[in-house]
């Protein structure tokens, strides 16, 4: 079959099972957009900014587990994707980003809209390609998807020179990839698994510390089975929310900087920490030398470079979390009642130090999150922006299923949540999708309201509007003696009017007793987005809070 490079590219995407992509056209990607005009079976969503396209592809990937695809033109189009690619990279999200590039004859000549995209994205991609020959397109697409979705997932960039999009090739999609330098190890080493059994057997106070890797490997079911069979409490990272049901009696909820007091105490007291698909990030560990000081460490991760990177490990197991958990479940035996004393201690901490906030007549953000949980029955997909809104959304919503929590954990990208919610809603059209936002971050990609309205997406945007860059203000209050440098957003526009101008619904909520009604009202709107402008108390803080550089049990509770 004779095709142009552009047609071959789209055909290759279809071979990879892609049916939707998010993008924005421009000069050097025009041949692909021209081919897209005629192609069947591929839906292109035009965002209003390339960054929106990248985050939408990422949100789609997180909500579905499939590879998200975004596309942009050369130069500024590609550099606008960069924040989205870096976001996906930090959180190990499978994504393929396609960018147009100037023709091969113009490369390196500082041509119009030329940027060294493979150079720029090299540190924030799992791999990237510059395609100069049309004939390479099918092989490269095949490799890119394979790399993006296997092992530790991540973004791959394919930068396609314009002439490679135009030239004709005899199209044949390869059946397999030949990548001698890329062979992810999935099966845990039997000797290490045996060593893990021994350690689990000796432990009296074990804790499971589960991260985003459990979700990436679709191992939530196995994690639940393992935890129940061994009667071991589970704390999750921010990225791991949904990997273990928050409603379960063994759940310790989130640990770390804004984790629950009982999770942090349990980690600091435990004698065995079983890390699964987690990477001992500084927001989890606090002061590293004092993290889990009494514990032996078992570390299960598909990326060998994560093992020993931040912390010395006693039993490393390299491999896929799902497979290794299956191996562990198959053979582990725990004598009944062995952890009872430990679980009693934890129950006491839970009782003494629950997550809580002041319950009075003020409209508090924590209450709003609890109400969102209530009206959605805990069944919604919660996307977030970054900052206080993100932490309250993490703390006060009860996540019970994987892929229902969509948030920029590693990079902490403000402006992520709304476009990610768009991607998530396309991936899960029947789900209720919320974007929990702050008044700062919602303004970073508000232009995507046009995309959401255009496609009649019933996304609910709950803005916890405190007229501040709240998390920065909180740090300034606690760590910089209330010098609120450049965090006041008192000149915010009227967000309700903005929503309405785009053709979305908008509501303003100022009182506690209006919250539930407004949320139920919003849930009834099915044909367009709805922005809820919650005017919350201005100087509410996120607690617990482990100040940076402290041990995680040295937290401020209120």
């Amino acid at each position, binding site marked *: 079959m004779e095709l142009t490079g552009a047609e071959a590219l789209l055909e290759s995407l279809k071979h990879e099972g892609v049916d939707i992509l998010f993008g924005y056209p421009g000069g050097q990607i025009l041949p692909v957009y021209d081919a897209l005009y005629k192609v069947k079976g591929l839906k292109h969503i035009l965002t209003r900014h390339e960054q929106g396209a990248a985050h939408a592809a990422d949100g789609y990937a997180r909500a579905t587990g499939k590879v998200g695809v975004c596309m942009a033109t050369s130069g500024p189009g590609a550099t606008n994707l960069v924040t989205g690619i870096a976001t996906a990279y930090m959180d190990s999200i499978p994504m393929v980003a396609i960018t147009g590039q100037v023709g091969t004859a113009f490369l390196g000549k500082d041509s119009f809209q030329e940027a060294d995209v493979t150079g720029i994205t*090299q*540190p924030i991609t*799992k791999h990237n390609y510059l395609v100069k020959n049309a004939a390479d397109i099918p092989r490269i697409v095949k490799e890119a998807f394979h*790399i993006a979705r296997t092992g530790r997932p991540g973004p791959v960039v394919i930068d396609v020179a314009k002439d490679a999009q135009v030239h004709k090739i005899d199209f044949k999609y390869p059946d397999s990839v030949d990548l*001698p330098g890329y062979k992810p190890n999935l099966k845990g080493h039997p000797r290490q698994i045996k060593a893990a059994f021994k350690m689990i057997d000796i432990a009296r106070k074990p804790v499971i510390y589960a991260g985003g890797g459990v979700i990436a490997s679709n191992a939530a079911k196995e994690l639940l089975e393992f935890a129940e069979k061994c009667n071991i409490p589970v704390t999750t990272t921010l990225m791991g929310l949904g990997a273990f049901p928050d409603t379960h009696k063994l759940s310790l909820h989130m640990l770390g900087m804004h984790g629950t007091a009982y999770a942090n105490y349990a980690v600091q007291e435990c004698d065995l920490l079983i890390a699964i698909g987690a990477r001992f990030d500084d927001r989890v560990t606090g002061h590293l030398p004092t993290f889990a000081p009494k514990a032996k460490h078992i570390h299960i991760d598909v990326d060998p*470079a994560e093992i*020993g*990177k931040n912390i010395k490990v006693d039993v490393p197991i390299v491999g896929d979390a799902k497979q290794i958990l299956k191996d562990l479940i198959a053979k582990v035996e725990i004598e009944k009642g062995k952890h009872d004393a430990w679980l009693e201690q934890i129950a006491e901490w839970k009782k003494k130090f629950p997550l809580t906030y002041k319950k009075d007549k003020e409209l508090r953000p924590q209450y709003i999150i609890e109400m969102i949980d209530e009206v959605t029955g805990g069944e919604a997909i919660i996307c977030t922006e970054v900052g206080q809104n993100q932490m309250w959304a993490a703390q006060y919503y009860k996540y019970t299923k994987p892929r229902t929590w969509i948030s920029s954990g590693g990079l902490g990208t403000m402006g992520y949540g709304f476009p990610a919610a768009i991607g998530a809603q396309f991936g899960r059209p029947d789900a209720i999708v919320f974007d929990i936002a702050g008044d700062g971050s919602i303004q970073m990609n508000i232009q995507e309201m046009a995309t959401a309205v255009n496609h009649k997406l019933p996304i609910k945007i709950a803005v916890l509007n405190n007229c501040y860059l709240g998390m920065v203000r909180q740090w300034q209050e606690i760590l910089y003696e209330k010098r609120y440098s450049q965090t006041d957003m008192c000149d915010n526009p009227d967000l309700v009017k903005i929503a309405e101008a785009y053709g979305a619904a908008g509501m303003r909520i100022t009182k506690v007793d209006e919250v539930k009604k407004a949320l139920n009202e919003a849930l009834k709107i099915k044909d367009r987005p709805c922005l809820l402008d919650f005017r919350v108390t201005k100087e509410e803080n996120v607690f617990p809070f482990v100040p940076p550089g402290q041990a995680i049990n040295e937290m401020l509770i209120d």
Partner: protein
Amino acid sequence: MKHTISVIVENKPGVLQRVAGLFSRRGFNIDSLAVGTTEKPDISRMTIVVDGDEQTLEQITKQLHKQIDILKVFDLPYEQAVERELALIKVHANDKTRGEITQIVDIFKAKIVDVSEDSVIIEVSAEKEKVESMQKLLEKFGIQELVRTGKIALQRGSGK
């Protein structure tokens, strides 16, 4: 502590940048880096001398392994490897000093590869320390220019 690592890579554009970028962004120190094709034209070999403790070396090795274009990474302990560095040294020379310079060149089993009225270029291939001591001895004549390749190394015997 210095380590010599061999990195076998696919000979593709950008692979050197990937390796160099990895070292700089993760804060690993490179002492020297030499790269060239191997017996297979599509495979290149980099010899990298790095400075760091065991844990750093482990991280470097693992992070290099993660690069798709990198096929193999291994540490070459000194006692198991043949190590060489090539240097070209242009030294000021006249009728009076040329004899003494020639003697030094002979002792180090080096070669004079270019002679002009007031200078000679010496080629020396040896272990790093030897190259350095030769350089020291030549300093008094006045070194005009010097270029070194960085270390290359191969495992002794039939291994790897």
